[in-house]
């Protein structure tokens, strides 16, 4: 299925430290039996572990007592959640209408070429993840690329190398 790297789906919890897993369980128990718990739990768990592979989704489902199909449905619905490891820096390219007509797609293609990864993937050195978003509400700055918390407006493919250098 597009966008999912199945090699990580079966990843066991062994890649997470005992400390991380203890935090995960604490998050689950903090929200357990509260309505609407799933999304905040997933947010915090992703914050602790970096991403939400199958093993963590099963842990959350079991912990909250809800079907794992529902957890997976939410994880795949929101672009914020990821099932593949995220890089140290997350690059989000806006492909909303305004950015798209002003060349967002070209910027994305350029980044795909430079980093050698497709949207949804992470570089081998785990430094960069590449994602696309649909409108960041900054259409006046189109086309927009957001890296971590920094917004880079009026981007051009030629300017990318210089911007990326700040994060290498």
């Amino acid at each position, binding site marked *: 299925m*597009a966008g*999912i790297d199945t090699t990580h789906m079966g990843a066991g919890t062994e890649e997470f430290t005992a400390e991380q897993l203890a935090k995960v369980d604490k998050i689950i128990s903090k929200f357990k039996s509260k309505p609407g718990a799933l999304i905040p739990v997933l947010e915090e768990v992703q914050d602790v572990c970096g991403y939400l592979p199958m093993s963590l989704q099963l842990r959350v489902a*079991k912990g909250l007592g809800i*079907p*794992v*199909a529902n957890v*997976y*449905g939410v994880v*795949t619905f929101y672009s914020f959640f990821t099932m593949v490891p995220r890089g140290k820096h997350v690059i989000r390219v806006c492909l909303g209408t305004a950015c798209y007509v002003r060349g967002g797609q070209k910027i994305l293609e350029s980044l795909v070429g430079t980093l050698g990864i497709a949207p949804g993937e992470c570089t081998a050195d785990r430094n960069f993840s590449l994602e696309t978003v649909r409108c960041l509400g900054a259409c006046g700055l189109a086309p927009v690329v957001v890296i971590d918390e920094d917004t880079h407006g009026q981007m051009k493919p030629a300017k990318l190398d210089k911007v990326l250098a700040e994060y290498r």
Partner: protein
Amino acid sequence: MAKVNVTIDNIKVSVEQGNTILEAAMLAGIKIPTLCAWPEINHRPGACRVCVVEVDGQRNLVASCVFPVSEGMVVKTTSERVRKARKLNVELLLSNHPTECNVCVRNGNCDLQVVAEAVGLREVRFTYPDYSTAEYIDDSSPSVVRDARKCIKCYRCVTVCDEIQTASVLSPTFRGDGVRIGPAFNLPLLETNCTNCGQCILACPVGALYEKDDTDKVWAALNDPSKHVVVQEAPAIRAALGEDLGMPVGSLVTGKMIEALRRLGFDKVFDTNFTADLTIIEEGNELLQRVKTGGKLPMITSCSPGWIKFCEHFYPDLLDNLSTCKSPQQMMGALIKTYYAEHSGVDAKDIVSVSIMPCTAKKFECQRDEMADSGFRDVDYVLTTRELSRMIKQAGIDFANLPEGDYDNPLGEYTGAGTIFGATGGVMEAALRTVYAVVTGTNLESLDVTPVRGLEGVKEAAVEVGPLGKVKVAVAHGLSNARQLMDKIRDGSADYAFIEVMCCPGGCVSGGGQPIAPSNEKRINRAAALYKDDGAVQKFRQSHENPSVKRIYEVFLKEPLGHKSHELLHTHYYKRGTDLPHAHDAEFEVNDAKNKATH
């Protein structure tokens, strides 16, 4: 409830406040086309947009299946705007739906075909995506095939799986035009908590979910002169097959069914009702043994393989409560290749054992590792009612005008108690008749145990059984109802001696292999056919009175729960749990209640 007055296409109707426009229109004699809505299970996602109507004062068209009526509302259902919108919406649904209608399993019984006709669609202007079938079709399960190419995202299967059956295997995943309905992590169905019940198939308006078709294998066996092909039919087949072949719902077609099977070329036509009677003897004795020896109570029935797998996944701690009896299908399978083989002199290796079931989970059940106690696969192929109906059509048999056939001996004779296994409460009723008679030496005052009949989700009854005193029993059908009883057992508040659980709502009469689509009306009518078979057709109404059952104990099994029974008629279960993905049967821990309880 207050009434409100609405005008629909110039027809004035007074309807209850809170009703939807769709319901009001029905009262006005107007049938608005729908696709995703399924009011009987309160499923109204408003997703397909086929039922849109124009409401005065509303800027946009509204989905009539969810929009509530209000006083003075004026609705138009055939305005140009509505007609255009409906047509476009169906055209868009078809824009990424494969045009394989002629070879689709739902050809002629497809809601999408019906709405396309209802909105007058004659052309689809959009081209179809070039689907890769390998990516979209999941045929990992022996029971249920998913074809995501055909899915129209009506969410009916999701509601059935999540709310009615509480297996919660199917869920919407991803978003926008990428939405896919499927299991978590897009796992193959075989590796999930799927119970194989097939209720999703009954729910599907199109051909996105269907039974794995085994008719070709059965045709091949029938056409192979070296094979001796033997068939058994579950109780619920005779109450539903007729309606798939042009007869009224609730037609009891036992004789025509047997005749049709003979004409298809089966060498022997036995009847699962015989082993239903046998189940009552084994299970009744198991219950009495548990009561007398302080065994695990409440004891729970084990006829329904969807229920068994559900229990293995979600209640692995309560597997000791399950009766160790195999299902009637598997008892029959084990007897065909032992008792019948000896009786007839046919070598068991040449016998092909086929069963006709109202059930998709039976296809999984017959493939379970342990279901080979005869030394062979006890049951080789399972066909659903729909598949048998297909074979009858393929053979050009004029079903409605067939003469009445009769089953073969020694595994065909049955009582009314066996036949009512097909309706929820039937196993309990049959068991109470025999247990009462065995314990007290007299018959129940009335053999009709009506408190356990009908469609209420959880039914309870208490019967005074001589020296045993008051025996409390409960019956659940549909897995959400079963869950209620299981949770009571878990927390220690269940004071029943015996519980019947059927996986499917209404029991086997509305199993996942029965004619599409289901409704409570059909469940009631099909059950009525079985109660008619029990009350008015069969000579005997109690399993222990079945002459063929008496005979098999005399000449073969010797005694209930005896050595032979233990070997052929009882089984064990697996602690499957809910971790994903699921392993092969052999890798689970076995819960060997059989050896604990019967010997």
